[in-house]
């Protein structure tokens, strides 16, 4: 069944007429995602490659069955777009946009929590259930369908691992790019909860990086709540303290958020930790051999 998205997911794209929105709306549709409508304020009534465009999310939801929105609007408009989707009652939104001001992010997540909306991102590559549905910007061809769940704060590093798995003929149930910002919606714990409950996932890969304490908290959660094997990896062993390593959330503050602390937390929770991205693949193979 996979998690969050599948072949029955009905998606709208907010910002479908913009540069990034239009490119990825096409790629998502080519992959097989069911895009029922697009939204760009002021461009209602237009047609995007056969996809109807509306002025508002409300209108799109009135005319179509919608259960997911992917947001590609520029950073300073992303809060408004997300609030519109939350208000319209869409249960899952994915905010791909990078560079959302933190004060906007706080408001976005507070509104989502009140309404019970699941938010993927912001600053993320989205989610893919290979062979069924892609929301966001993952290169679809890099993954093959299978039974490994993948959770990651990074984009290209996720692709690297997806590709390595595919070359080893190992497939993915769902890959969740949860985002590189300091405050995100669906986090590592929520992702673990979903994949643990998913009957079509046998094993979970958790890719973390420096900054914050999400991995330490995830490790605590794994100890008592996750029975499936978890393989971990942390990027940023070489990162100096006090510097933002690309992602807004990837920064060691004082002595908090180091790769070392995260690795130790993983190990204490029984998570097998890979030193390199390709070691992840070896650990997955070992684990699958044990199971067989």
């Amino acid at each position, binding site marked *: 069944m996979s998690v969050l998205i599948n072949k029955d997911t009905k998606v709208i794209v907010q910002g479908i007429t913009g540069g990034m929105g239009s490119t990825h709306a096409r790629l998502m549709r080519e992959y097989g995602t069911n895009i029922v409508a697009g939204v760009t304020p002021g461009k209602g009534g237009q047609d995007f490659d056969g996809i109807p465009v509306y002025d508002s999310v409300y209108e799109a939801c009135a005319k179509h069955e919608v259960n997911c929105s992917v947001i590609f609007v520029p*950073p*300073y408009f992303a809060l408004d777009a997300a609030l519109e989707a939350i208000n319209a009652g869409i249960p899952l939104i994915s905010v791909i946009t990078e*560079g*959302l*001001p*933190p*004060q906007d992010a*706080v*408001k976005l*997540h*507070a*509104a989502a929590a009140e309404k019970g909306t699941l938010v993927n991102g912001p600053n993320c*590559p989205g989610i893919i259930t290979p062979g069924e549905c892609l929301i966001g*910007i*993952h*290169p679809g061809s*890099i993954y093959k369908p299978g039974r490994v769940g993948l959770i*990651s*704060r*990074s*984009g*290209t*590093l*996720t*692709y*690297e691992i997806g*590709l390595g798995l595919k070359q080893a003929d190992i497939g993915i149930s769902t890959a969740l790019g949860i985002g*590189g910002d*300091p*405050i995100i919606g669906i986090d590592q714990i929520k992702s673990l909860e979903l994949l643990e409950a998913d009957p079509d996932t046998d094993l979970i890969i958790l*890719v973390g*990086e*420096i900054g*914050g*304490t999400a991995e330490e908290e995830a490790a605590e959660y794994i100890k008592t709540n996750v029975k499936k094997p978890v393989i971990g*990896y942390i*990027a*940023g*062993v*070489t*990162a*100096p303290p006090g*510097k*933002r*390593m*690309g*992602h*807004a*959330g*990837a920064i060691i503050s*004082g002595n908090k958020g180091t*790769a070392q602390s995260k690795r130790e937390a993983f190990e204490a929770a029984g998570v097998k930790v890979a*030193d*390199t*991205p*390709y070691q992840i693949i070896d650990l997955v193979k070992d684990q699958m051999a044990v199971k067989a």
Partner: protein
Amino acid sequence: MRQFEYEAKALFRKEGIPTPQGFVISCAEEVFSIPAKTFPKTLKTQVLSGGRGKAGGIQFANDQEDAYQKAQDIFKLPIKGELPTKILVEPKVTIKKELYVSILIDRAYRGPILMGSAEGGVEIEESGSIEIVPVPGARYSSFHARELGAKMGLQGKELIKFAGLVDKLWTVWTKNDCDLAEINPLIIDGDDNFIALDGKVTINEDAVGRQPQFAGQLAAHLSDLGEREFKGKMCGLNIVELEGNIGILCNGAGLTMATMDLVLHKGGKPSNFLDVGGGANKDHVKRALDLVSSSSDVKVLLVNILGGITACDEVAAALAYYKEIRPEAKMVVRLVGNNEEKAKEIMDKAGIPMTNILETAVEEAVSLAK
């Protein structure tokens, strides 16, 4: 974007937060324009790095001649490698109490928090008496400030005055899209007035674009950065300096960090972090190559691109150009993904070997750097 103290105080005054009546000077000779009867004065170096007090960047002057000597010294005194271009001159104030207050976003609370302490003035990390009041969803009201003040032990008129000041600091924080707005020390003077004796304000870098009052100021606020980091900021490239000799150029923050870690794992040392970002075109990659190789420490360039949105042939074209102008440069290239075949043709033509296996590329770069 960290503001200098004198700029932070200007932001404070705009919202009605009292500060000492100060002004900045750009050369030591300016002290002779200060009326003699207004001494003594405090001279404060204006740098972005912390720890200036301990390093001797804050001095008291009794008269013009004293101020002249001390201003000359301060202008020559680097703080963590950073020289000041300005000194803030302020009157000395009488201090009855020193407090601390700040507003910032805390990841654990998923939103802003108010932080306060009744023991201001010192490095606040060292103070054992920090109080925290979260402001969920950034829905601030004065009661948050009164709650904080009460936790800090303030009562009566002091509590009410404190809350009024935090209201104003909240306005500074939201209006300017701050990451941090901090007053340390926040003093109560001999006449029971609350005064911001120091100020630390950081504007969020992602939000600067919607804050026109800070437009064009970035270059002046990077004095604490290394040379390549400064240049990178100026041309939109995200680079972080390290001390090794293998120049790194990748796409995506996570993959870049993983590549650096792999270099270390194989016994090498990365010279930098550089993420060219998603969808980089030829010119952008050319700038990135120039930037990475502008350090004389760099012996080998390691390029690792996994093309999702980024097209490998755009990267290959930039590499071919670079090879032409710098034929002696050692380059190890791993390109995989979007338009990989086209990229291979360009690379073959230019005579640059490439691999699609990351481990191979890293091993080769490490051995070339030795």
